[in-house]
């Protein structure tokens, strides 16, 4: 129903350009439902992470792939990271999220943790938000210096029913 495959330059301003483009594309494909906000947010949060922690050299600009069919949407952001530590932080964040019974509890725990340590870099709040607000299941793969983060959003029988 909708497929996007975009390789970005890695500039921060491109995140908003792509976010608003995704919002418009999802609106055109599915209609003016809340799910368009969710897809736009998921894309923006994953791209922000990629631009912040990824390599912007010629071999590693972030690549976004988005596909939406009647049953689910899949967002994957792939980028070369500047260090193993960046990828390990993402993998740890996802493991941490999986330790909670619900994504809402994980998100709230992240909010409270940030209140305790506001200067914490790479806070993981964006990933927690993707899981909670976007209703997504997250997974990641790290191989050869390339990190791929995938968010899967179940849409149910039709996108309209996913508007909540």
């Amino acid at each position: 129903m909708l497929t996007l495959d975009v390789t970005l330059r890695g500039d921060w301003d491109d995140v908003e350009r792509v976010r608003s483009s995704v919002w418009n594309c999802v609106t055109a494909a599915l209609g003016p439902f809340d799910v368009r906000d969710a897809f736009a947010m998921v894309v923006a949060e994953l791209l922000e992470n990629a631009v912040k922690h990824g390599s912007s050299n010629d071999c590693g600009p972030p690549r976004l792939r988005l596909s939406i069919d009647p049953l689910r949407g899949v967002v994957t952001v792939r980028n070369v990271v500047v260090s193993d530590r960046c990828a390990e932080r993402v993998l740890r964040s996802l493991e941490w999220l999986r330790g909670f019974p619900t994504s809402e509890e994980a998100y709230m725990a992240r909010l409270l943790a940030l209140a305790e340590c506001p200067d914490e870099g790479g806070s993981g709040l964006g990933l927690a938000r993707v899981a909670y607000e976007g209703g997504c299941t997250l997974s990641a793969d790290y191989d050869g210096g390339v990190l791929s983060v995938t968010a899967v959003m179940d849409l149910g029988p039709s996108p309209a029913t996913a508007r909540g």
Partner: protein
Amino acid sequence: MESLKAGDLVIEVLQALPPEPLRLVWRGKSNERNPSILLAPFFARSIEEASQRGVAIEMHFEALDHFNSSTITALIQLIQDARRRGIGLVIVYDASVKWQRLSFEALRVFSKGDGLLELRARAAAEPAA
């Protein structure tokens, strides 16, 4: 106190005589890489202004299209700072918009018995206070 205009974001300051709160109306999008650089000094001025007037701060997000998680981090800091100064903070959002409902309802985790943080849901059709 002047409104904040930065990139895609405008926070309009609406000042009225006490006991009316200091109203801050968010419009557009908060998508800066490090929004705290802009927001933290603005929030500090807002807290100072509210303290001098002896009023609460009322932040309206109904007209905001999008904010990133770094903005949420800045808001958490505002909630903490306002509470430390004993300043009431009211957050008004559009409950008919799913992302706003989810984002702002989660902030109830910072509500305590002191009544200094109020989360106020408003449907889009309701007139502003």
